[in-house]
């Protein structure tokens, strides 16, 4: 097997902005003193006249982005997820969401895989916060190919979009030649009949790995990549609920309010089946190497295998109770 190529999606974000700048003349980029980390520095180097550093002032950056969008620009406001969705939440809600302005938020360093910086910078709540804003689109790409495609899709969509990128280099699992990104549409990566694993972001690769182990045990696993958490592909989720009878969700985010919650909300309306959530439980992270933290917090193929086994027994218990 060929060596797995890894790349952080924040890198893909910076490169995509640069690569799309010629085609999209209204694209401008804002950052809050983190261009080297968010990788918007790549854009800045190529298009210095279209890059604006706002300094360490995220609230104002989001407001400036709103004003630029109200005047026809397509601003990409970039900072860490903690500050984009956390610190600037109310500005995103009132100055971008309420007027439904065409602002794109590039939030990097999302989740526990921030690593050594620890809990203050590990944002496990951003999906929950952003998806409660009416009209906000929330995208969490799983690899380089999907991240680039998501940036283009965000540009082609008129309205506010929150894009979530990671710090850690992750395997490239999609084929750049054939991959098609459709906003709001989940992707069935592997079909299966016993259980659905709905994953997002870096957990998609873990889900695929887990499926291999489970298949060897004779469990047929359907793996679905949910890159767009809002609007959620309810049709696909409900189809999976009906066809496999149980869903395991996997995300690098709190189990409160993220993909797991969104999936649970959907199935309770269309086809109530057990939903087992894998994510960061109701706790803060801490410092450590990203890879070790992911393992510790159960964001791994091994834990997906374990939870899928539990989910399947839960499915039969529920079925017997009927």
């Amino acid at each position, binding site marked *: 097997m060929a060596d797995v190529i890894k790349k952080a999606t924040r890198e893909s974000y910076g490169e995509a902005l640069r690569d799309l700048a010629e085609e999209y003349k209204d694209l*401008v980029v804002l950052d809050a003193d983190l261009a080297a980390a968010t990788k918007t520095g790549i854009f800045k180097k190529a298009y210095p006249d*279209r890059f*604006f550093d*706002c*300094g360490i*002032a995220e*609230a*104002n*950056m*989001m*407001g*400036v*982005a*709103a*004003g*630029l*969008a*109200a*005047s*026809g*620009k397509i*601003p990409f406001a970039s900072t860490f997820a903690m500050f984009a969705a956390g610190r600037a939440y*109310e*500005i995103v809600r*009132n*100055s971008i969401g*309420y*007027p439904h*302005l065409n602002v794109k938020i590039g939030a990097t360093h999302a989740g526990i895989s921030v690593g050594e910086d620890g809990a203050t910078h590990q944002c496990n709540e951003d999906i929950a916060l952003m998806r409660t804003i009416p009209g906000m689109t929330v995208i969490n790409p799983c690899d380089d190919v999907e991240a680039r495609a998501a940036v283009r899709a965000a540009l082609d969509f008129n309205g506010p979009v929150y894009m979530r990128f990671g710090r850690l280099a992750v395997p490239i699992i999609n084929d750049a030649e054939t991959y098609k990104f459709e906003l709001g549409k989940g992707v069935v990566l592997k079909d299966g009949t016993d259980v659905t694993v709905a994953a997002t972001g870096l957990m998609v690769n873990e889900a695929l790995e887990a499926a291999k182990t489970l298949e060897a045990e004779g469990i047929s696993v359907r793996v679905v990549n949910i890159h767009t958490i809002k609007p959620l592909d309810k049709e696909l989720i409900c189809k999976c609920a009906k066809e496999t009878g149980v869903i395991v969700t996997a995300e690098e985010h709190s189990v409160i309010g993220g993909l797991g919650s969104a999936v649970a909300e959907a199935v309770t309306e269309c086809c109530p089946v057990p939903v087992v959530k894998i994510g960061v439980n109701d706790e803060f992270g801490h410092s450590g190497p990203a890879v070790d933290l992911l393992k510790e917090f159960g964001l791994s193929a091994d834990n997906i295998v374990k939870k899928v086994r539990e989910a399947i027994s839960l499915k039969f218990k529920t079925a017997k109770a009927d």
Partner: protein
Amino acid sequence: MDAAMKKNLQKIACKVRMGVIEGTYNAKSGHPGGSLSISDTLTYLYFAKMNVDPANPDNSDRDRFVLSKGHTAPALYSVLAQKGYFPEEELKSLRHIGAMLQGHPCIHIPGVDMSSGSLGQGISAAAGMALAGKLDNKAYKVYSILGDGEIEEGQVWEAAMFAAHYKLDNLVAIVDNNGLQIDGKITEVCSPEPITDKFAAFGWHVITMDAHDFDSIEAAFAEAETVTGKPVAIVQKSTKGKGVSFMEDQVGWHGTAPNKEQYDQAMAELNAQLKELED
């Protein structure tokens, strides 16, 4: 300013104030005090200064206005109605269920350039609009009115830093210095003073004006035109509740609507002022 023009602006401002009273009375809520303190400035902007056309509200070359102190929407709506963006009749349904005129400015209302009202946010959006104007080499200006209490919000100073750094000389921020906020005098609540020194220290060109004297207003905006390389802050000395005797300089009228009796008295006073101007 010649006498005829001044008289005309005074008459329009008087009608704008009547709209404020009409709106808040019918809404049984809203913010008359701070609406009345900015009525003259808004009248000047919309009738003597800004390049705007109600028939073409989305013209990309137009001047922009952002009411950062969005709770004084009744004054903005009233001046927009006077200007012809929508019928004056709309003011009577301010804040009602199903009405167009929301409690705070909403971008979907004709003539409103930005949703605002959560304090400290409008100035950032105004700075973004000014930056867009620079990028597109457009000549438009962006005006934004802030409250003197509002500038206690940290975001205002983030925006102040940003606008000066990017030399947004097409941005004019007006601070409505009526001296009162919900909890009392601004100097007693958590003082933002000295306001002029603060903006100057942030790299802005600062001008002061009398918010209820059209000569002073005209002179201030004329000076703003001459400034290059810096954003402009106009600190306007104003009276909260201006034009309605019992509301003037009374903190209680920050966010209280007049009852029937108070409405009648306020309208009688404003009608008398208008009659005097028309005589």
